[in-house]
Structure formats: C-alpha cells, structure tokens
C-alpha cells in the first residue's frame, strides 16, 4: 500500500446545499466529471439518459450523474441525500448532496450531521432565499463552522461584479448571525465549469480561489489536544471467563494502558488494563479508533456507559436544554414519551417544555406549543434515567441525540445538547434500607401493576372492582386507581387535550410505580388511549411487573351501554375531545391479556385476569 504522504490533508467531508434549482446536482456532476471521477460507461449512460430525462437539450445533463432515484429523474429534483467519494491529487472528499426542497429539509440535516464544511449554493439571479438561510442555520446547528457560498449561474448575469457583491454582503451578515466562523464566497457557473476546477481568467475582479482549490486546502480539523478521553461502550465482549473487554469507538481524546478512568454514570474508577486490537494489543489509541479495553478491576460496565478520563469526567444529568429539529409528519407532543438515543445509550425521554421555535429565515424566536415536520426549536428534555452527556459544541459525540417514536420506530427528531438544567444535578436518588422486596415479603405477595385500558363504558371499572374484591378476599394488599376518581383530585387541573391526556397518564403511572414500590398490587383503570403513553407506563416498571389488559368492546357497544350518558352528550357536541368520538383510541398491538367484553361477562373477565396474570 502506498505510504501516506505527509503533505496530504485529512479527507474533507462536506455537504452541498441550497434552495431547489440553484444547481447543486449539476455542480456536483460537473465537479466529479472535471476531476475525472466519472467512468466512461457511466458517462455514456448519462448521455443516453439526458436524451430521455435531461433538461439541457442535446447536452449531457450532468445532474443525472447524481440524481439516482427513479422519482428524482421523473421530477427533475433531488429527494434524498447522496454520498459520493472522490479524490484529487491533493485530497480525498466525501460529499453529501442534500435536497433543496423544503419538504426534504430533514434529509439536508442528515447530510449536515456528518460534514465538516458546507458548500451553500445561491442562484446569482435570485440571491439568498429563505431556504438558503434555513440550510445555513441547520448547518451551523449541526456544528459546521466552515461554509463556502458558491454564487452560481454567474454566466446568466454576465459575471456582473455588483450582483455578486450584493449577494455576498447579504449572506455575510446571515452567516455571522447563524454562528458560521469561516466563510468563503466564490462566483461560479456549474454549467460552464468556471471557477469550479478551472479559473475564469476573464473575470479579473475575482482573485480568490476556485471552489476545488479552496476545498483542497481548507483546514477544518479540530485539535485533539485539550480533549479528555471519552469512549461510549457499544458492546461487552465476554467470550469466556478469562476475558472481559469493553468495545467502542473513541469519541474524544486519547487513552494509554495504565490511564485512570471513570465509568459514567456509575462513577466507579479503575485503570485501563490493556487496549486490545486484532491479534494483539496496543499501548495507546485516540479519537476515531475502534478498540476493546480491558480494565484492571472487576467493575460493572454495560452498553451505554461511557469510559472517560478520571480527572475530567463528563457530566451526568436527566434534564437538559437542547436544540431540536423535528423530522416526523406527526408533530412533537410535549409530555409524550419518545426513545432517546445518545451515543450508545437508549432511554425514555419527554420534551417538558418548548422554549421557542426558530424562524429559520430570519433567525427570530417564535412562541410555540409544538414542533411540526422540519421545524427547529429549543426545548427542555427530561429522561427517565440519568445519561452521560456533554455540551454539543464541546464534545459532539456526547452531545448529539436522536428521538425515536416508539409506536412506529421512525426517527422523529434529532438534537444537540446545550447544557444540563440545574434542577437535575442537585437532586440525588436516595437509597433506603427497607426495599420493595422487604415490603412485599411482609405482605406475602408480589407487587405489580395491572393496567386496564379501553373505551369509556367498555367495562374497565366494573372488572377492576370485581378483581380487587377477589384479591382482597384472598388477603392481598391492593389499591385501585380509577380514571374518574383521580381526575377529582390529583389531576383536577388537567383537561382533555392531547397534551393534558399525556400528563394525566404520566402522573397516574408514576403514582402506580410508587405504590408497587410500596409492595401493593395496583389496578389501574384508565381509558389511556395512546399507545406511547402505555409504553411509557410499562417503561417505569421492571420487566414482568406491568401487565397491559385490553378491555375490548366496539364503539357501537359502548355507545349503546353508555351508563353515564356521556356518548349521547359527546355526539350532541356537548363534550369535546371524547375518546372514540372526536379523539382517537389506539388499540393495544400486543396486550398481555385481551378481554372481549362483548362475549365475556365481568366475572369471567376478572377470573381470567386472576388465572392468567397472577
């Protein structure tokens, strides 16, 4: 293999962005062709395709080199981010070609998250558009400090200097405001190739570099010095009792054999015993390396823990402020549970407050109660377990996270941590000597939570009442939490909007958890219409302590039973947000027990619960 030449700079990862029709795909296609990165058979194919899909008459449409999806060719736009690797004599590049349409902003964010530099395009005839500003702000939010503004289609304004200067000036203030540290502005024509790889000699007023020259020479590496060692544990490697290694990729700093490290969040300290690699060991490793560490002492380390420099350990928190981009068609709901993945740890998390929503074109803050698809905002987030974190601008690998909607597993949001909220760090979980096990032993029972969900009038309360009577008669210690009763007291302040319903369930689930900790068998009888809230409730308990029981009756049956006359009133429009009428009920996909109350009587249902679940 050829030895690394010391003069060769590290590879540059950049994202290409800008508004639709500014010519991103054409610019990239041109850049690839002019750097001789296009094979002869690929070029022949593009010439064929150009006759079919192209927008350039008989000329080869170079955008077709990169727009690979069928829908993209048919619509003549870029939908998804494409990654290409190319290299010149001076440097290797990985470029993410991001879509310009506003509806695909999330794909632009995807491209930005793994880039060191952004090339933002602007059409010389149109200047800086709202989407140009949006992309610039997203790039800055995702930690990109270096931006190139390529003012494209200069041939169409006859290389007019004042047009260029006006766009450059306007963009400079925007970039400064967004937090871009280094900006280079270059006039180009992707169509003719001027100032891409080849200088346009006839434009004497521009003396700066061509786009390629700039990309080949720009220095974007952040120094490894001054960083402390951080390695999230991805995988515990324990092939036999003689070997226990912790595998991961080093996110920051360096590590050497014998270094003192702290396991976060537990706080245990130990020493690095060895750094294991393929068929051997190493003395040291640094940022970017995938390694396996062994530790001098037997300590408890699991996936999601972070092994870190002992003298400068990372923070631990369960509440923080973050910038968030929302990527789902389903709007963010404050208080709803999502899965949050940060480095290699997954926890349950809720957005507790939307501080503001960002107007991305102007950079101003807007009030907001939700974030919709492609919205950016600043939010407070609480997690159900403490996480090891760092502010994103200091340690990107410990300060970035994604949020996953647990009902359909889609990646719904992505964020960067600004700082921990103080409340959390001052609160410590207190361990006491009398444990749940001790309490339930005294009661001669196993504490647990039986969660009954179903439409109003499906029979939940009747079944719950019968069930508790049976348990009580058998000498068990129980408590029944009933939806209507709790709303008279603890949840008196809550209404029936989606946000309030989420909070209603959160409180009840937390109360049920405390009662299970107290050693009780807790029966919860709540409509609890949303799958994600029931999943949240389940997540509060140890596996096996929580059973979801679906009390099932059709909406027609429930409306016909209507013991409280509520359906009649809801249908007359006197009650709003009534489950089953104008508010949805999400049926449990996989309940622990399914009770069909159209076929079974309440006694039979209670009997089934006793036999199957207790």
């Amino acid at each position, binding site marked *: *293999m*050829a*030895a*690394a*030449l010391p003069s*060769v700079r*590290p*590879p540059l990862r950049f994202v290409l962005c800008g508004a639709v029709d500014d010519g991103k795909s054409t610019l990239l296609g041109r850049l690839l062709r*002019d*750097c*001789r990165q296009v*094979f002869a*058979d690929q070029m022949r194919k593009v010439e064929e395709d150009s006759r079919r899909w192209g927008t350039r008459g008989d000329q080869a449409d170079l955008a077709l*080199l*990169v727009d*690979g*999806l*069928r*829908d993209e060719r048919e619509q003549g736009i870029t*939908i*998804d*981010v*494409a*990654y*290409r*690797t*190319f*290299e*010149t*004599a001076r440097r*290797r590049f990985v470029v993410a070609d991001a879509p310009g349409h506003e509806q695909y902003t*999330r*794909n632009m*964010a*995807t491209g930005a*998250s*793994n880039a060191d530099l952004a090339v933002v395009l602007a059409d010389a005839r149109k200047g800086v558009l709202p989407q140009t500003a949006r992309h610039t702000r997203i790039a800055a939010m995702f930690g990109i400090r270096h931006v190139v503004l390529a003012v494209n289609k200069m041939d169409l304004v006859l290389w007019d200097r004042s047009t260029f200067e006006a766009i450059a000036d306007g963009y400079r203030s925007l970039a400064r405001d967004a937090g871009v540290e280094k900006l280079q502005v270059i006039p180009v024509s992707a169509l003719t190739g001027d100032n891409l790889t080849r200088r346009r000699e006839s434009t004497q007023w521009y003396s700066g570099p061509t786009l*390629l020259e700039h990309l080949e020479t720009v220095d974007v590496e952040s120094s490894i010095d001054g960083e402390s060692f951080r390695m999230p544990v*991805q*995988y515990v*490697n324990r*092939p036999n009792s003689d070997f226990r290694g912790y595998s991961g*990729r080093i996110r920051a700093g360096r590590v050497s054999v014998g270094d003192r490290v702290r396991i976060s969040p537990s706080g245990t300290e130990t020493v690095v015993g060895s750094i294991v*690699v*393929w*068929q051997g060991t190493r003395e040291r490793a640094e940022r970017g*390396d*995938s390694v396996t560490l062994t530790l001098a002492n037997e300590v408890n380390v699991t996936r999601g823990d972070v092994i870190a420099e002992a003298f400068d350990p990372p923070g631990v928190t369960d509440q923080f402020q973050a910038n968030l981009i929302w*990527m789902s068609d389903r709007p963010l709901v404050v208080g709803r549970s999502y899965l949050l*993945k*940060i480095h290699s740890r997954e926890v349950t998390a809720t957005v507790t407050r939307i501080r503001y929503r960002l107007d991305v074109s102007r950079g101003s803050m807007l009030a907001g109660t939700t974030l919709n698809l492609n919205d950016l905002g600043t939010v407070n987030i609480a997690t159900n377990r403490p996480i090891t974190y760092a502010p994103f601008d200091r340690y*990107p*690998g410990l300060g*970035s*996270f*994604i949020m996953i909607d647990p009902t359909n*597993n*889609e*990646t719904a949001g*992505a964020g960067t941590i600004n700082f921990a909220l103080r409340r959390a760090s001052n609160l410590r979980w207190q361990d006491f000597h009398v444990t749940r096990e001790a309490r339930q032993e005294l009661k001669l029972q196993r504490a647990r939570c039986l969660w009954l969900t179903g439409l109003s009038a499906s029979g939940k309360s009747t079944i719950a009442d019968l069930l508790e009577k049976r348990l009580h008669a058998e000498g068990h210690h129980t408590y029944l939490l009933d939806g209507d009763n709790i709303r008279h007291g603890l949840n008196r302040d809550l209404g029936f909007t989606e946000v309030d319903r989420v909070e209603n369930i959160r409180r009840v689930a937390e109360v049920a958890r405390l009662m299970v900790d107290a050693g009780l068998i807790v029966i919860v009888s709540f409509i609890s219409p949303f799958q994600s809230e029931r999943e949240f409730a389940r997540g509060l308990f140890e596996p096996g302590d929580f059973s979801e029981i679906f009390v099932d009756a059709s909406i027609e049956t429930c409306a016909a039973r209507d013991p409280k006359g509520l359906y009649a009133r809801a249908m007359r429009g006197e009650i709003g947000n009534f489950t089953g009428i104008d508010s949805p009920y999400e049926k449990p996909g996989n309940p622990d027990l399914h009770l069909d109350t159209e076929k079974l009587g309440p006694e039979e249902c209670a009997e089934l619960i006793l036999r199957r679940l207790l």
Partner: protein
Amino acid sequence: MSGTRASSGRTDRSGAHWLSALESEAIEIIREGIATAARPVMLYSMGKDSSVLLHLARKAFWPAPPPLPLLHIDTTWQFREMISFRDRIVARAGVALVVHVNREGLAAGVNPFSHGSERYTDVMTTGALRQALDAGEYDIVFVGGRRDEEKSRAKERVFSFRNAAHQWDPRAQRPELWNLYNTRVQQGESLRVSPLSNWTEADIWRYIAAEGIPVVPLYFAKRRPVVEREGQWIMVDDERMPLEPGEEPRLLRVRFRTLGCYPLTAAVESDADTPKAILAETLATHDSERRGRLVDHDGDASMERKKREGYF
C-alpha cells in the same frame, strides 16, 4: 489542477490514515448491529467485499469469533472456484455457515440461459434470499454494499430499513444522523446494514493488500477459457454452458472485477495478478466495475427496482 487524465486525481494518495478511519467506522457499525440485533446474519458471497466484511467482523470481536452466522445464497451457477474458497475460509474464521438454494427454482430448471438474466435473478437470487431471510427470521442483515457502486446505493442508509416483505422504500428512509443508528424494528421487519458504505473499489483493494486478506483467485489474471458475447468476455466454467453455433472458447489472460454467477459475470483482459497490480489497474480504468455485471443493464434504474423488491 491539471486537466489531463494521466496526472489528474486518480492516483493512489490516500494513505493509511484514511483506511484506518474506514476500518474503525466499519467495526463500529458491525458492533452496533450485533449489540442491538436479536438474530443477526451476514450475507456472504465469496466476493472481495464479502471477504473484507468477514475480516472486519473478525477484527470487531477479537478475541471472540464473530457472533453471527454467514448466509450464502447458492444459485448453483457460481464459479466452481468460489465454492471451494468458501469452505476453506469459513472453516478458518470459526463461524457458522448457512447455505440456501431456491429448491423450487432448481426443480423447475430455472437457469440464466433459457430464462434470461432478469427472470433467473428474480428466482434464484432475490427469491432465494427472501426465502432464507424468512426462514432465519433475521432482524439485522449485514451486506457488503458500497455507495460508489451504483447511484441508488449512493442514497441508501447504512442501516437500511426493509418492511416485512423485505422491500426498500427510498421515499421513507429514516434520517440517519451522526453515528446514531436507529436499529429498532418490529416483528418481521429487518435492517440491511452496510458497514462498507463509504468505501470505494480502490479502498477495498488497498485494504486487501494492506491486510493480506485472501480472495478468490478468479480476481487475479490467468489464462482462462472465454467466449465473446455482446462485446463482453464470458468464461466457460463448466459443461452446462451452451455454446452458440461456431462459438469456440479461447484461452485469454483475464480476471474478474466482480464475481457472481459465471454466465452473468464478464471478465476483463488483464495482466494484474496481485492486489497491488489490481489496485493500479482500478485507479487507471475508464469503466466502472458494474459494467461487468450483466444484470445491472436489465433496464433503466434496474438496481433500484431490484432493491425495492428485496434484492441485495
């Protein structure tokens, strides 16, 4: 920069640093997949990318053997040398091997000559893969795909979601940010995971050379019996290949840039008989490696269509 071909960018300047970054990234991806999988599997085709992938899996879990089986979709039309290579390598790596053949296809006599490449691939490759994945109930499927291979692959995620029918929906891809991979699937759904996403063909050869990874000898130039068909050299690997009237196999010094089923994989004339010589040729070539894969030319956007249907 110079505009002439000889002195332009396609010289080998990417050093050890870049290769080791690609290696670390691939190992991270493999570990993440394994750590979150219920039933992982690695597709193994005996090709150069498979060889690199297996090598990386061994590195990722050293000193333990890779904690997952390999799955080989046997079309029964692969080069003979590939099968003997497979059995040798698998034994050495200490991993389990699952071999799957589409028995119905075989019984129906589906072959690349009388059924055409498209129908044959649908049955013996795509169909067989679906059968094998259903049977194994695999949730994480490691594959050797690279983004530089083909345009639709350039758009595909590292952890690429497939529905219960193994289909890829390019419009509904999960955003994939930083190194934070969303590995969650529901029953029946799966993820195709490509640890080599950011590698190029040249990187593969650089790495094979640097690490001394064994590959099937068909990659190296040697005199082999071939016939010319539609401007491509097809090797006569066994007696099942029907010759056209007047067609006479010639002995030519050839090698293969990609390996698949011998009737569908064209050879190139070459003298390159070491990984380094192949690397030099790769950096100087004018054609992409997929030119030698007849199946890719079956129609416009043919690869995207095959992937929507569950192809590799």
